[in-house]
């Protein structure tokens, strides 16, 4: 059952990315290019997504459980630290270079385009790199 609901969630999410045009890097880079021919779509996509998701979070936050009555622990909402800022900064630079973030990257694997596989391979390598860097800095 958990697989079925998670897959349905993924299907909705993937269909949304596709319909919204956010799988096209031109739309994302167009949004980020505020000094060029600005494309505001991404702001509408995010606003609509947040608007629809917010009531679900309100329910879980207030009740401490999901719709099945299982306890849910939500992520910390206040902690602000170095890794958050540095990580978000680096992610933004990478995102600005290609106009692709992890969700659209996975969706675009469907095009079987070699450069998308290079991108997603590098995303996975970057993720795998973090524990190695952490271990190295702890030792040094």
């Amino acid at each position: 059952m958990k697989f079925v609901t998670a897959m349905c969630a993924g299907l909705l999410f993937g269909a949304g990315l596709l319909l919204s045009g956010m799988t096209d890097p031109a739309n994302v880079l167009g949004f980020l290019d505020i000094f060029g021919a600005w494309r505001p779509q991404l702001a509408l996509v995010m606003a609509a997504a947040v608007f629809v998701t917010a009531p679900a979070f309100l329910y879980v936050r207030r009740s401490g459980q999901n719709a099945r009555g299982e306890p849910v622990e939500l992520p910390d909402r206040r902690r602000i630290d170095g890794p958050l800022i540095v990580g978000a900064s680096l992610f933004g630079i990478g995102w600005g270079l290609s106009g692709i973030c992890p969700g659209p990257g996975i969706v675009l694997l469907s095009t079987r385009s070699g450069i998308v596989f290079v991108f997603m391979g590098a995303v996975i390598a970057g993720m795998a790199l973090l524990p190695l860097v952490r271990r190295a800095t702890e030792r040094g």
Partner: protein
Amino acid sequence: MTTTQIWHALAGGALIGAGSATLLLLNGRIAGVSGILGNVIRATAGEQGWRIAFLIGLIVPALILGAGSPLLPGDWRWAMASGLLVGFGTALGSGCTSGHGVCGLANLSARSLLATLVFMGTAVFTVFVVRHSAAT
């Protein structure tokens, strides 16, 4: 921006929200794509099935409907540099556009709001440098 683009953006965003709400309400999980992918590749102990199911679901609409042939800027080295920064940055910052940008903001999280402002800021700066500065 045409009226069609506005409706597609709003309806697409609503679908993304419906997916995030579904995963939260029925699985008790956050629909953060970088977090889900990261936990799959790190083979984190515990439930992997729902994560893999979500990622399969994510790509299926594009496999059926097609995602067009969007053009990525730059060559393969450019894509590799971008991917490394995206992977490392989202792992270090615990989230991406979906985890912080959609779910975090929907959860009224100050932490996610800051992360979103920071990655939007550096992304805008990067695009500015690439597209408008004399250096490139």
